[in-house]
């Protein structure tokens, strides 16, 4: 019986697999087949349209000789380091503050988190004009009497990337805070009580007892911020459109402009493959842990 049972598939099991089929087929075509197609294109002489002349590693070699790509990598490094570290620290700090506050969760959490519900094109527009030296912050300070105040980073080649970082941190910090707040609520309370009984001060309580228990929250935060950093595109387009010049080029804007406006599809595909590799390093261990958990 046991042996025959093992091979027995009920009608409902079959129905289930059939129901799952569209999702599986769409995923395999639109995700995996498409990834392989893009990888293939990155080894071809495609320009305006996909073409299939094999050129080996030539696109990758060319890409790494382009100053635009160097700018994109440099900006990506600056962006991800500052974006991840500052929003993590700020998010953790705000989560602790909210945890202490009486009105915190009801009143302040919605205020800190609302930027996540809005398009980057909208928030990019707000920040673009708010940071514009002619009408925004600089002008505001002048009308308040600080006539020598200067803030023209958004128009300065070597500073503009930092304005994107400011806006990106502003947008995501509430999300980071929400993740840490959930972590704080899951901390083992007995450990807090015994530390308090032992006379530990607030600083020691957080650094020795509470924060060390937030490991899973830190993992979530780093992975989510890391993959958002790789994907960030809309905000750059809305805020600086890659400028001034191409000073705020990122891998995502490089990919788009080489593929669709400069007609260098092979190089565009190479940059997309590079982004996927970065992404895979971050996300695959993480997806394994989500699947294991469920």
């Amino acid at each position: 019986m046991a042996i025959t049972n093992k091979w027995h598939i009920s009608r409902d099991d079959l129905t289930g697999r059939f129901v799952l089929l569209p999702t599986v087929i769409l995923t395999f075509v639109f995700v995996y087949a498409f990834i392989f197609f893009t990888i293939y294109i990155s080894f071809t002489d495609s320009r305006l349209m996909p073409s299939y002349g094999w050129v080996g590693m030539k696109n990758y070699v060319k890409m790494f000789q382009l100053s635009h790509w160097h700018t994109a990598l440099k900006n990506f490094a600056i962006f991800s380091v500052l974006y991840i570290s500052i929003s993590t620290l700020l998010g953790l700090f705000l989560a602790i503050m909210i945890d202490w506050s009486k009105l915190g969760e009801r009143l302040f959490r919605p205020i800190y988190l609302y930027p996540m519900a809005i398009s980057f094109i909208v928030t990019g527009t707000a920040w673009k004009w708010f940071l514009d030296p002619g009408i925004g912050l600089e002008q505001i300070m002048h009308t308040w009497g600080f006539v020598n105040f200067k803030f023209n980073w958004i128009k300065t080649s070597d500073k503009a990337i930092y304005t994107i970082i400011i806006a990106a941190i502003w947008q995501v910090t509430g999300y980071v805070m929400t993740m840490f707040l959930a972590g704080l609520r899951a901390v083992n309370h007995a450990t807090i009580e015994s530390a308090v009984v032992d006379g530990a001060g607030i600083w020691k309580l957080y650094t020795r007892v509470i924060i060390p228990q937030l490991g899973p929250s830190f993992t979530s935060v780093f992975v989510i911020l890391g993959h958002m950093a790789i994907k960030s595109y809309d905000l750059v387009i809305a805020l600086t459109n890659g400028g001034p010049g191409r000073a705020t080029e990122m891998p995502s804007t490089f990919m788009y402009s080489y593929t669709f406006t400069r007609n260098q599809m092979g190089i565009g595909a190479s940059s997309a493959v590079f982004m996927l590799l970065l992404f895979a390093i971050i996300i695959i261990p993480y997806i394994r842990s989500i699947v294991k958990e469920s």
Partner: protein
Amino acid sequence: MTIKDTMRLHKTAEVVNMIIMVVFAIFFLTPLYVMVVNSFKPLSEIRGGNMLAFPVDFGVEPWKKAWSEAQIGVQATGLRPYFINSIRMVIPAVFMSTLMGSLSGFVLSKWQFKGDKFLFGLILFGCFIPFQIVLIPTARVLGTLSLAGTTSGLVLVHTVYGLGFTTLFFKNTYDSFPSELVQSAQVDGAHFFKIFRDIILPNSTPIIVVSVIWQTTNIWNDFLFGVSFGDATSQPMTVALNNLVSSSTGVKEYNVHFAGALMAALPTLTIYLVSGRYFVRGLMSGSVKG
């Protein structure tokens, strides 16, 4: 439990805590405030004045102009047609991805088979990828299907790349439903679809709300697919807003830009204010619990 259950803050510390929270609230609200006040000002008040000041000459002209007169691309149609494009794209895509996600989540949770976890991982991977890796083949396939530049094409793309999230939402929820529920229904002779319709769906309302809110917010706010695969007849609101704001011809009408930005923000912001709790659930299910 929160730390308040064990410890009390000193009165001074409580005041400092409050001040910090208010300062950050101001920081987070400033861009929204700037958009609102300046969308009701005449242009001269923005150019010569202080962006943080209230409008002196209050008027809804910028809103009217952004909605129906502003130059978007080559045509002076205002944002209205693009707002409609977004609605026509969001509704079917949200409906289909939620329906397919609930069915897939049900199968992956309650009709296990060899390799189902691996398959789930493969599906999940698809919703996190940097979409630059699929832009070239997607453009080609939409072209082959004659869906390039159409709302239907965008609906297809958003449905497919939303499946990972919706499947995750429903699978996680159904995992907490007792398996006996399904088994006893089977013993009573109920088949797959009857179980799904009579037992699973009636208990799925909260997660359907989460999925609909998450998908609506994501698809409404999308820019990359809209700009890559939309044309003048199908571009969504975000793309039109970007065209309006970044247009280099003519006078920069900041007040009209702000009014347009608020129009693009209002639908998702309203959803957030009305049902923030469900939005947070959607956000959090993409993260491993602590």
